[in-house]
């Protein structure tokens, strides 16, 4: 057993973290929010780093890496509140498409994704809107059990506004045709939901850490009563409590990326939703009135966490699913069953 990342995985993570710290700093996120929300130049650099091809099979020109490699990258995207469509694509759409890479039309989409020539958006039929549908060349959409790969030209979009000023969501109208079916295998949307939940959880982890880091930095410098507010035990304990929640969410997220089992995924999802909500509430509190402004960067992270908590199964959905798994009549219980299948 080895619940650890390789040196290469961590190195790549660090490279991405440094890149985003330089290219997607909070000031740049703020700039994007004031403009049209997306930076083509930054996206090109993500392509150059190989990030759009991270999970694309090598045969289609990608790096052929798996979800364990990707989960660290998704976490960094969250930490930077990256506005561009990356995580949904490499963590949900591409792993799905890769299963059908033997079909020439799918293979060519994967190739185009790796080179940055095409973008693919994906929305679960359970969610009313699709993120980044507007900039996408292809959309993965559902009708009943069937999963369709639909060209942008065949859909009509109605843009909606998200509470996250940097999220771009749209309602999608389209007609399902035989030529767009990727698969109609029953249960496939459930597996896709798990990929989506892992993507949201990994980003949520990064968002939560970013909020705690911002608040800790502020607590070190903001003075009241002649001392840094971080010297007050009330403030210290607040942030330490959130850090504990984040650490306890981290292991489940990494495990879920490894096993991709529904119960691990739901566990990770719930742990992160809770940790991120606590991080947001606490970070605002530590910032005082500053934390309630648009002028301090914190709210960008808070609003992303807020928005992502609702899609790909919210807390309610995943807890309910978890309860059914744990409480079903044939659930394996007892000390020997609980951890037996790690």
């Amino acid at each position, binding site marked *: 057993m080895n619940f650890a990342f390789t040196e290469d995985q961590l190195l790549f993570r660090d490279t991405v973290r440094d890149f985003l710290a330089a290219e997607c700093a909070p000031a740049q996120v703020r700039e994007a929010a004031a403009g049209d929300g997306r930076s083509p130049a930054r996206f090109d650099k993500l392509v150059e780093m190989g990030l759009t091809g991270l999970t694309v099979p090598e045969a289609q020109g990608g790096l052929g890496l798996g979800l364990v490699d990707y989960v660290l990258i998704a976490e960094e995207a969250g930490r930077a509140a990256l506005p561009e469509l990356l995580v949904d694509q490499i963590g949900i759409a591409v792993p799905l498409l890769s299963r059908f890479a033997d079909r020439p039309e799918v293979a060519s989409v994967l190739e185009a994704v790796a080179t940055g020539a095409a973008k693919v958006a994906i929305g679960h039929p359970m969610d009313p809107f699709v993120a980044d549908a507007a900039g996408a060349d292809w959309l993965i959409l559902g009708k009943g059990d069937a999963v369709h790969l639909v060209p942008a030209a065949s859909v009509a979009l109605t843009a909606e506004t998200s509470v996250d000023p940097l999220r771009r969501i749209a309602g999608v109208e389209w007609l399902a045709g035989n030529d767009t079916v990727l698969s109609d295998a029953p249960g496939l949307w459930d597996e896709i939901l798990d990929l989506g939940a892992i993507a949201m959880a990994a980003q949520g982890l990064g968002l939560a850490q970013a909020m705690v880091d911002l608040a800790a930095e502020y607590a070190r410098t903001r*003075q009241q009563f002649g001392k840094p507010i971080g010297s007050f035990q009330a403030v210290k304990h607040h942030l330490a409590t959130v850090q504990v929640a984040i650490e306890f969410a981290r292991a489940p997220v990494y495990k879920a990326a490894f096993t991709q089992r529904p119960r691990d995924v739901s566990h990770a999802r719930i742990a992160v939703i809770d940790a991120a909500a606590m991080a947001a509430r606490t970070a605002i509190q530590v910032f005082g009135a500053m934390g309630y402004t648009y002028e301090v960067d914190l709210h960008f992270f808070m609003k992303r966490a807020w928005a992502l908590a609702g899609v790909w199964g919210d807390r309610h959905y995943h807890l309910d699913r978890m309860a059914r798994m744990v409480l079903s009549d044939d659930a394996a219980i007892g000390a020997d069953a609980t951890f037996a299948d790690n």
Partner: protein
Amino acid sequence: MKLSFSAEDEAFRAEIAAWMRDNLTGEFAKLKNRGGPGDEHAFFEERRAFERHMGKAGWTGVGWPKAVGGRGAPLSHQVIFFEEYARAGGPGRVGHIGEGLAGPTIIAFGTEDQKRRFLPGILSGDDLWCQGYSEPNAGSDLANVRTKARLVGDRWVIDGQKVWTSLAHVSDWCFVIARTEEGTSGHKGLSYLLVPMNQKGITVRPIQQMTGTSEFNEVFFDGAETAAENIVGQPGEGWKVAMGTLAFERGASTLGQQMAFRNQLDEIIAIAKANGRARDPMIRQRLADAWIGLQIMRANALRMLSKAEGPELPREAYVSKLYWATWHRDLGKLAMDVLGPEAEIAPGSPGTYDLTPLQQLFLFTRSDTIYAGTNEIQRNIIAERALGMPREARA
């Protein structure tokens, strides 16, 4: 102890209920349930007109003594007034800082001249007020105020900066805590000044909130002036007056606030029933818990106000801010959890940042645990004053 209302109370209830029914109509109908926290921008001018309309009918200053133009209503009537106002969907009051804070402070600490000069404008809805306490370096540590005022002839001349000043951009007057004795620090040497906002020595810069709107402001004083007599209490005794104002902040108006909370909870319950979430056991229990919290707040407020005489706070008051702020912050979160995936969808077209009332509630309630004394400061006060624990070490 007597918890029921008398026949006379009920007659008063019928009177205010009828007035609201007959007057929140026509041009004012659209103000129903608008202008609350997070929605402060909605129909501001119309709400100001409604404030004046209420003033003409004698529905401002309900709890103020008759001698200064109020209704002199007993506590039971004040409770009823706030209940019926909220039940009718009365709009967020634009004059609440004057009616709830400035007025009571002037009544308690001001001179007869000041009462004659300032109270009628508050009652009529003509003068709106703002609270100039916080500064960049004086938040929780309010006594660290650096804004200075010096007496030059018959004028106070004021230099410095306030921040987070709610409604400063629409206010006519501001009550300002300023340091009037050079070389002093902490609570000593502060004075409580009433300053007209409309003058060239004052610059107001709105601060954008996470809701996208701007309810609070930075206020810069650069040689701003006010008449020498516009000081409440003695020079150097401003801290005592300022603390008196804070006590009013937790007075009878909290009963009205609870009615607004009640309306919010009712709306959330209605949504939960409609979208099926009310069947979810966790949501069910949180809704029931929220309801219990409301009853606790109401019982505590009635108990506290039954004892309150003047600006000193009874023991029960120390716990109330902490309780309602935390309860309300949880309610905001509960609202979003009840909405589920819909919680993310904002109204309006892309490029604008409009939010639904419940989204505004969620964001605004993030600040409930910060303004009027943060939760941490409230806990320190409870530990130190109610439990007699040693004071936190200061630098």
